[in-house]
């Protein structure tokens, strides 16, 4: 039994503002925070990620003006929704004419519908802080049997010191609809700021959602994301998560598959340098039969960086004929870098095909030597091999504009050409 003089969570949210006439989602979240504590490394889910660096600080909500030009995706025709420090900035956003789509404030989300859809998802202290103290975000709905003319870009920028960005989004894909969501995260002179994001979604029958997430924040901020998705029968969901940003990143991604004939795909690349800590936690829960899921995450860690991968796949007793594939591969470029990889399969059905694998190693010295004997410098040989290693995952980013942005980012920040 631990007795604490004061509740750290309450202290953490003390300075944060929330409207007194807020939605029930807000109120319930605030209520749920009562009596909660921040996770320690004794909690299995947080065994490898210490959040003390975040939770010992106090943050402020700050609505400011910013220049976002350099964070836009060049050449990409998209609906652009801009959030600066978690506040929706209408003047910077551009939502185009598109009859398939409605974009509203997150506060306009039907609360009963939301409660019903998200019933099964598991909250944590950070998602609750987000929901209780959110400062903006959008509720996106794609109409039945519609395909959006353009992808939707949720552009997040955190700027200024000690800021907490609590943006909350919800996307609903009605039956038979299709869209692509691009979520980008950047920061500018935002030392010790904290991006605490929640994105939730409901992919209805026969609908198809692709998400491209680019987490490119600077290495002096914190980033925790909670992404929850519910899939109805015959729906498709794919997410590519590219993480190079922040001092401490925790990408929490949970998908509950609530219907037959669904496909779920998660791909991730994480590149760590300096003292970065990059944590990817994923969960796919199969409740019904005849579904497939595929998960490929690859990490390259340099300097003193740490990578964490925890991928859980649960197959419930009535979910037969599930094919679940999971793999995690890591390359350590330095002696001081580390990776904690933990694939977990929990299978309660008997007729399933599941496989998982995890590897962590160094670049093959013999291969580097071989390349060098052909006139390629050691540095370039390593780059070629790293590129080959993560290229397999990058090739799953099937949007050429996004791919270009990723390639450019890697070139600028790592000198890596892919």
């Amino acid at each position, binding site marked *: 039994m631990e007795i604490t003089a004061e509740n750290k969570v309450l202290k953490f949210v003390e300075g944060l503002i929330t409207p007194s006439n807020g939605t029930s989602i807000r109120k319930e979240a605030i209520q749920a925070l009562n009596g909660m504590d921040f996770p320690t490394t004794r909690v299995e889910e947080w065994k490898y990620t210490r959040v003390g660096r975040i939770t010992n600080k106090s943050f402020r909500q700050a609505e400011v003006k910013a220049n976002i030009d350099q964070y836009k995706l060049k050449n990409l025709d998209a609906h652009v929704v801009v959030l600066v420090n978690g506040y929706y900035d209408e003047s910077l956003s551009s939502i185009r004419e598109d009859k398939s789509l409605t974009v509203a404030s997150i506060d306009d989300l039907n609360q009963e519908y939301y409660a019903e859809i998200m019933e099964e998802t598991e909250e944590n202290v950070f998602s609750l802080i987000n929901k209780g103290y959110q400062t903006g975000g959008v509720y996106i709905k794609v109409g039945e049997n519609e395909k959006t003319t353009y992808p939707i870009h949720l552009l997040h920028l955190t700027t200024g010191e000690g800021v907490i960005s609590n943006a909350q989004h919800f996307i609903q894909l009605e039956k038979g609809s299709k869209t692509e969501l691009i979520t980008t995260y950047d920061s500018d002179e935002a030392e010790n700021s904290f991006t605490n994001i929640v994105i939730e979604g409901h992919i209805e029958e026969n609908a198809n959602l692709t998400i491209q997430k680019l987490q490119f924040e600077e290495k002096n901020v914190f980033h925790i994301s909670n992404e929850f998705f519910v899939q109805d029968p015959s729906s498709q969901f794919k997410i590519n998560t590219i993480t190079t940003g922040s001092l401490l990143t925790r990408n929490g991604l949970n998908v509950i598959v609530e219907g037959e004939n669904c496909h779920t795909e998660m791909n991730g690349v994480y590149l760590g340098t300096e003292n970065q800590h990059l944590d990817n936690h994923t969960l796919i829960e199969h409740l019904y039969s005849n579904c497939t899921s595929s998960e490929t995450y690859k990490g390259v860690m340099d300097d003193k960086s740490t990578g964490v991968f925890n991928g859980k796949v649960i197959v419930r007793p009535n979910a037969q004929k599930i094919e679940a594939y999971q793999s995690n591969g890591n390359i350590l470029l330095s002696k001081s870098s580390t990776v904690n990889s933990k694939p977990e399969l929990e299978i309660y059905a008997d007729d399933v095909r599941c496989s998982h694998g995890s590897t962590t190693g160094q670049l*093959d010295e013999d*291969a580097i030597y071989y*390349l060098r004997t052909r006139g390629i410098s*050691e540095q*370039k040989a390593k780059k070629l*091999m790293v*590129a080959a290693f993560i290229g397999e995952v990058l090739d799953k980013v099937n949007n050429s504009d996004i791919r270009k942005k990723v390639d450019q980012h890697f070139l600028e920040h790592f000198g890596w050409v892919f």
Partner: protein
Amino acid sequence: MLTIKNLHATVGEEGLEILKGLNLEVKPGEVHAIMGPNGAGKSTLASVLAGKDGYEVTEGSVVFEGKDLLELETEDRAKEGVFLAFQYPVEIPGVSNINFLKTAINEIREYRKQEPLKAKEFMAKVRESSALVELDPKLASRSVNEGFSGGEKKRNEIFQMAMLQPKLSILDETDSGLDIDALRIVSDGVNKLRNENNAVIIITHYQRLLDHIIPDFVHVLADGKIVKSGPKELALELEEKGYDWLNAEKV
């Protein structure tokens, strides 16, 4: 072109001496065969010339085209024109043959202060070089050596040699694992690449490759030294009498 004088080299942390005073002189246009029993130091010689980690030269010198080869990094030796065809070519998943060769050629050209090769010229060279060793052009676009058969790997080595056009090629046990057809293809490839300006060192245990690539000189490497040198007929004599004959002769 290449002058090796009194070369002593050790391997590993224990510093086990493998090369014990090796001398060799190679001139442009020549083909030298280095033969010898297992453990004589043949592959060590190849590794020392290419600059592999883990080998230490304790005495002697290697001068290549007027430069101290031992002072150069592995990649710079390649840029100066030294090429090693591996006994066991390395598989590199995800790195395509084409991408890798383009990088190599352009790094070499940059070193020699030449313009990068144009895409069209590069592709023409790929076609020409793969035809030389009857390598399926599809293999050229696959990952380096990944899933290649033993023969394909060896042909890929000669394909790379054709692409890089080195001054000095060291073929380390290139005949091992080759069937009679592949042996002929690889040998024909090497013969076509020979000219008065380049040279080849063939390291081999057996004489059979030398039926196809006729050497100007044959050297016998035993216990870290060249113990006998002679014309191409020496290879036949070795094949007939075995390496023990030399030991007997020495005594």
